[in-house]
């Protein structure tokens, strides 16, 4: 039976073997052909040599998650197939068991593997003479003597073979490959196209048209689409929002965002500073915010731990920012430094001593990353609070194809800034003036008549230190009033969403990057006759208490789904609404939820009667 345009592909190899560029070229050529992709990488904290793999899912309709099976596995090395179980300290058993029945494995013929060694009689084997084909490709350019220099290009041979087996339009791949090599590198583009062509032709010729049951066919394009990942969506939103100052200290997986910004800083006049540590990073950003610039910093858990102190200073001094992007990864300490987790919800909510207002938003996908980041700058300046965008490694590094962002309805709101004319002749400007709403009009340092003081000590309206009990009470109320206000002003539609029919007997509850897997899992459940809906909580603070109470108050079975050990959001919901979850599905192996894990988890609960389910396909 032939399947068309529903395909999962995986390429694995040692870190440094170029699996990223190959997978991204494949993805791009699919998008150019009107298909839709979801592509995510898993890699080790290592520069060269350790096993990493890239997963690409191609569908006729946009996929929002990955699945745990592989239709076609491309192995650049033996370890990708069999794992490293022969080592003294083994870490994984390879991917051969993940290949779907009827699927196949592309591997290097020179490994001389016997079919029996795969331990599977339900899959197809596609041995390819990687090196011979590469030499042939290089010969066309007179480069075959420099084989060692071009050895990495076996990845492109394998890509070509994959395209050949899926019988996809080769011209689309040519285009995608060439785009990666511009200017002086253009010749390398031709070389790579030739390598892909050799793989393509070899696969078709040696294995025949029907060797592989899944085919990819071009579809009509549905408008212009981009291939974008979370860090890019955040970075572009920062540029759109008029952010002028970004600080960072190198850390996985946040650094990509800062590097993207630095590479575009010239066109947007944005300062990007690599600070000496995250303490400095947040404080520089807060200093810039106080000085009138929209500012931000990006980090992951270990860096955010260092930022706690600075967060408190931003809070008590009512700085108009910064916006902090927290790309969660598996902790604590160094944890699993290149793997994902949603375990910093409580930490973001409570980081730093004392009580002060902060806004925390947890976008669910690349598109929400963009809009929520843009809004974050408006909130920071409007309410004069630090804003934390709680996202994660998975969303940061995952590619999806989406329509181009439309920026027309996005408006910069800088909040209440005193004008020079307001200040003309003024002798009594008070930076922390009591107001009904708690927000004091702010001056920008440099403005005549706007001189103010600010301090991390409790302070009076002028910003001078005080320990007076009555002023303390007023100032605490003033600051905390702002978060109440934000809760009233920001519409529920931005804070939480109920996906699916409100009458469903089962309500899934989740937040952040698991949105895609939950939505796709719901469809799989539905095709199995199980109807569910999904409450996505997008605002952690101010919490959409009324809305969540209203949805969950009438829900029957409530299942929390979280990429952490203790179901932190479930706890927060109970705290805010008094409503407890009936079941939990958690995952804390450092890997993101797949579509099928949502399906399997829900089935375990409703068919097998399990109360708490932990899923993992590691």
């Amino acid at each position, binding site marked *: 039976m032939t399947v068309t345009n529903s395909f999962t592909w995986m390429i694995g190899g040692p870190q440094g073997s170029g699996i990223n560029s190959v997978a991204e070229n494949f993805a791009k050529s699919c998008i150019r052909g009107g298909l839709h992709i979801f592509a995510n990488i898993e890699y080790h904290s290592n520069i060269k040599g350790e096993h990493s793999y890239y997963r690409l899912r191609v569908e006729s309709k946009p996929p929002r998650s990955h699945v745990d099976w592989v239709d076609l596995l491309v192995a650049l090395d033996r370890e990708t197939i069999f794992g490293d179980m022969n080592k003294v300290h083994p870490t994984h058993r390879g991917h051969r068991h993940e290949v779907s029945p009827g699927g196949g494995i592309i591997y290097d013929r020179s490994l001389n593997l016997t079919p029996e060694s795969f331990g599977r009689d339900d899959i197809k084997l596609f041995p390819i003479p990687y090196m011979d084909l590469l030499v042939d490709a290089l010969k066309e350019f007179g480069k075959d003597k420099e084989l060692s220099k071009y050895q990495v290009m076996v990845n492109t041979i394998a890509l070509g073979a994959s395209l050949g087996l899926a019988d996809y339009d080769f011209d689309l791949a040519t285009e995608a490959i060439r785009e990666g090599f511009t200017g002086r590198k253009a010749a390398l583009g031709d070389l790579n196209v030739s390598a892909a062509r050799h793989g393509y032709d070899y696969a078709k010729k040696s294995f025949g048209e029907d060797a592989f049951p899944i085919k990819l066919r071009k579809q009509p394009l549905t408008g*212009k*689409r*981009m291939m974008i990942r979370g860090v*890019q969506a955040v970075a*572009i939103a920062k*540029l*759109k*929002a*008029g952010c*002028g*100052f970004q*600080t960072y200290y190198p850390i996985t997986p946040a650094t990509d965002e800062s590097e993207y910004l630095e590479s*575009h*800083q*010239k*066109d*947007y*006049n944005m*300062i990007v*500073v690599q*600070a*000496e*540590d995250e*303490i*400095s*990073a947040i*404080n*520089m950003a*807060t*200093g*810039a*915010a*106080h*000085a*009138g*610039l*929209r*500012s931000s910093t990006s980090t992951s858990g270990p860096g955010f731990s260092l930022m706690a*102190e*600075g967060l408190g*200073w931003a809070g008590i001094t009512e700085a108009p920012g910064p916006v902090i992007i927290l790309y969660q990864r598996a902790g604590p300490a160094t944890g699993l430094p290149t793997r994902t987790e949603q375990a910093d919800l409580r930490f973001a909510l409570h980081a730093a001593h004392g009580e002060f207002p902060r806004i925390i938003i947890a976008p669910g996908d690349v598109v929400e990353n963009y809009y929520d980041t843009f809004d974050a700058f408006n909130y920071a300046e409007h309410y004069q609070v630090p804003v934390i965008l709680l996202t994660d490694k998975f969303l940061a590094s995952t590619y999806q194809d989406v329509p*181009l*962002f439309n920026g027309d309805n996005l408006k*910069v709101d800088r909040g209440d800034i005193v004008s020079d004319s307001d200040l003309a002749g003024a002798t009594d400007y008070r930076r922390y003036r009591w107001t009904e709403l708690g927000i004091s009009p702010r001056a*920008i*340092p*440099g*403005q*005549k*008549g706007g*001189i*103010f*003081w*600010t*301090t*991390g*000590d409790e302070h009076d309206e002028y*910003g*001078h*230190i005080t320990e007076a009990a009555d002023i303390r009470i007023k100032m605490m109320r003033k600051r905390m009033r702002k978060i109440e206000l934000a809760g009233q002003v920001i519409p529920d539609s931005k804070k939480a969403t109920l996906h699916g029919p409100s009458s469903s007997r089962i309500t899934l509850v989740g937040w952040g990057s698991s949105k895609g897997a939950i939505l796709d899992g719901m469809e799989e459940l539905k095709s199995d006759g199980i109807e569910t809906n999904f409450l996505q909580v997008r605002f952690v603070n101010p919490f959409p208490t009324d809305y969540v109470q209203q949805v969950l108050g009438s829900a029957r079975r409530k299942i929390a789904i979280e990429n952490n050990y203790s179901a932190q959001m479930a706890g927060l919901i109970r705290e805010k609404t008094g409503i407890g979850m009936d079941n939990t599905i958690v995952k804390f192996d450092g890997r993101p939820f797949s579509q099928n894990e949502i399906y399997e988890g829900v089935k375990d609960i409703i068919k097998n009667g399990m109360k708490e389910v932990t899923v993992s396909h590691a």
Partner: protein
Amino acid sequence: MLELKTYRTQVHNDWCPGCGDFGIVNAIQMTLLEMQLEPHRIAIFSGIGCSGKTPHFVNAYGFHTLHGRVLPIATGARLANPGLTVVAVGGDGDGLGIGAGHFVNTGRRNLDFTYVLYDNGVYGLTKGQASPTLPKGVKTKSMPAPAIIERVNPIAMAVASGYTFVARSYALDVRHLKQTLRAAIEHRGSAFVDVLQTCPTYNDINTKEWYGGEDLPVKAPRLYKLEDSGYNGSVVDPSTDEVNAKKGNALVKSFEWGDKIPIGVFLKMEVPTFEDQLALRMPALKDKPFVEQDIYNRDITPLLDELT
């Protein structure tokens, strides 16, 4: 008209009577007046401790930050608005203990600003513990036992970190301090001024009398002026070996401590600032600081098209 009181606030000053901090804050105010800098174009930043209260006494934009974090916060504000004259102040514990990493890395950037270190050898506000500049073996009256670890050398650290103006002065010599602060503020680049200072409450070793050399066999002030001794720390041509030679001289001088302690300018050189380097990358900033750039009409379509 600008006068001394223009730079003063009405905030009650709660430093101990006789505190060296008074000399420093007075000298700062006098220097700003001498330079005829308008208060709204000045921003004073401080860390935590007695010195941390300084901004509240100066009529200028004032930022009383966190313990040890004065330099990052001042850096962010200065980069956002290079129209501001930025003076950061802090104690020796603040700058060289908890904030030592920031001290080093701020020097590397050569931001155009001034950092004034209130150097009295003790943590005053927490009641007199040894600070990073207290020499080994010294026991002040509030310490249970003498310090058993070595002191840091602020001047040598500043030279090694890349500050391009490195000087020392004395809180009780307001004339010298004023002159040094002015040179520091006028310097284009990161200026560091180590201000030796008495703490009459907790440091009963490095007292006014001690600095005056009253304990010496032949009574003579311990402090002497570098320029009077023929020392010249100014680099004329920073593109030559002169830089290393002058830094070497400064380092050697910086270790002079005891009966004779040098004050004055140890090193001064003009090289491109951090702001200059950023303007090379972003030429639009030559005309307009970041804070005045238009942020309402940024066109991101080229970035989106790149991804199609």
